[in-house]
């Protein structure tokens, strides 16, 4: 007897079916999944997990599947952060964790750069930007510490199989327009719960044409779209990037959405997209940069997993080459990882940024989460980060606007929110346009 043919499935359904040990899963079903990788950081991880594990008398189900990243409270600034970081370091040693990244940068960038996230995997992260892993064709989403405890003890997690919402982008982005603008546009259109905790999948020739790190920006900000994951079907770009990290990548053809799979599709034209800005205090307050052009800014912040990866630093440097930030503007660059900062240094990108007057901050979550070098007072900030909630960056009085590295760089020069397309020739000449 031949087996029944498997119905057409979305990428999300296929990834979940594999983790649940099933041939096929249907949206709405509640299933139990085996976790391939559990990532957590100094804030969500050891300081919460250690006491709970001790109270339960339980142990980690599989150390080889755990990755710990110290990124939220490093570099330590006060007694409390020293205490939190010490707990993480001591616990990592005690537990002999094989995968620990200490002060290497932000988890969502460092963990893929370590080759830990590969197509087909089912992963959880103790941080809301964990959907970043979806850029590699892995089902990865964020959970809280107590749920992480459940994973760490059992190796399993429940899931309601999501519907898929496909965001299909076609056409070529203009010089000075990038993945961050695509995301702000989608969040502005659908709102912060537009994803309804379903699976978003980014597709279309524009997405296929994006670099791996630009794809990571899309998946990263799926969190701000309110989806559980932000998936991108793996392809040659994914395989090449992962192989460069030293990761072994098997065949990836299976990890795509089948023709005829049931999903909701939205279409976008990349060629007409203007640079986007999101006004305080929500990423959903997004619109064309022209709406806010001319607004004076005090701080230009290029940082975070969302907006300070190598490709983001290159974009900013493309605009800032040979230019200086306005005297009225404090330009801060906090690269997302040491690895990216080293490459940016080798390429001369860091020098361009320093020559433009940038103050280089630690490769950590820093001001983005208001944990580290929090911003103070009622300044107006234009930032490459993901969130501009009231008080998010450390001051309830601050007015935080969100934009791409191109827009933040262009605005740093003029001291006012500015359209980076005015620098299109510069960007083209520097070869960093999308």
């Amino acid at each position: 007897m031949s087996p029944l043919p498997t119905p057409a499935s979305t990428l999300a359904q296929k990834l979940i079916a594999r983790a649940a040990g099933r041939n096929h899963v249907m949206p709405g079903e509640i299933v139990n999944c085996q976790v391939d990788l559990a990532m957590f950081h100094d804030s969500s991880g050891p300081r919460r997990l250690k006491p709970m594990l001790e109270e339960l008398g339980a142990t980690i189900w599989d150390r080889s599947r755990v990755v710990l990243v110290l990124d939220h409270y490093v570099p330590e600034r006060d007694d409390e952060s020293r205490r939190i970081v010490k707990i993480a370091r001591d616990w990592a040693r005690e537990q002999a964790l094989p995968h620990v990244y200490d002060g290497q940068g932000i988890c969502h960038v460092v963990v893929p750069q370590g080759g830990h996230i590969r197509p087909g995997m089912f992963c959880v992260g103790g941080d809301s930007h964990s959907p970043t892993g979806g850029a590699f064709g892995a089902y990865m989403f964020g959970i809280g510490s107590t749920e992480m405890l459940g994973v760490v003890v059992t190796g399993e997690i429940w899931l309601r199989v999501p519907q898929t919402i496909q965001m299909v982008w076609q056409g070529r982005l203009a010089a000075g327009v990038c993945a961050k603008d695509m995301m702000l546009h989608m969040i502005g259109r659908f709102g912060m719960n537009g994803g309804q905790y379903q699976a978003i999948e980014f597709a279309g020739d524009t997405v296929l044409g994006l670099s791996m790190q630009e794809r990571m920006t899309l998946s990263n900000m799926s969190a701000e779209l309110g989806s559980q994951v932000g998936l991108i079907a793996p392809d040659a770009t994914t395989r090449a990037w992962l192989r460069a990290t030293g990761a072994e990548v098997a065949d990836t053809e299976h990890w795509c959405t089948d023709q005829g799979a049931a999903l909701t599709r939205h279409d976008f034209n990349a060629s007409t997209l203007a640079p986007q800005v999101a006004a305080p205090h929500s990423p959903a307050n997004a619109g064309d940069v022209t709406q806010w052009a001319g607004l004076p800014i005090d701080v230009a912040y290029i940082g975070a997993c969302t907006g300070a990866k190598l490709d983001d630093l290159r974009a900013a440097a493309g605009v800032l080459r040979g230019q200086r930030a306005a005297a009225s503007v404090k330009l801060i660059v906090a690269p997302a990882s040491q690895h990216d900062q080293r490459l940016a240094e080798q390429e001369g990108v860091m020098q361009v940024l320093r020559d433009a007057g940038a103050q280089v901050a630690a490769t950590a979550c820093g001001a983005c989460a208001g944990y580290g070098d929090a911003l103070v007072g009622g300044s107006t900030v234009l930032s490459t980060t993901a969130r501009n909630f009231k008080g998010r960056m450390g001051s309830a009085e601050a007015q935080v606007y969100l934009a791409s590295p191109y827009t933040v760089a262009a605005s740093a020069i003029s001291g006012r929110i500015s359209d980076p397309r005015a620098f299109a020739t510069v960007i083209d000449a520097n070869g960093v346009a999308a």
Partner: protein
Amino acid sequence: MSGSVREAQEHRVWRFGADIDTDVLAPGAYMKLGIEGIAPHCLESVRPEFAGSVQRGDVIVAGPNFGIGSSREQAAAALVHLGLAAVIAPSYNGLYFRNAFNVGLLLLTCPQADLLQENERLMLEPQESSIISALSGRLACEPVPDFLMAMVQAGGLFNQLRQRLATQAAKVTNTPPHTSSPR
């Protein structure tokens, strides 16, 4: 009608708007502290008097997208610490939804939450998927799956894990010594 004393209680309503985010519920600046240090600052940027005046058994009624933002479960645990009996809203952020049940906070998804008034008294009937308002009558909520209801009743996932491990340990002790696991 459920017979439990807890559900027969009246619950005073605190009204909040839409898109209440996790930075408002558990501000980043206090995240280095334990829950007893975070809870006094819960919601202070929108209602400074909240944490100081809220009474055990009160409920929050909010607009759509409650709990958007970070994975920090302190944003739900702070409400448990302050004694909130439930949050009632038309929709939640998905990650917050998971966290709330994991720390033992009941979330009721009520499309008509907007009818509920500041300071009014409610009765909750989660098993019947409804809320009873003296002003608006019986409002329907989305059913809470049984396994999540059980999680709230246990006081969260931690307590359930403890029970599960205790049951496993009991089984191990009851088996002959040569087959028992080290722990």
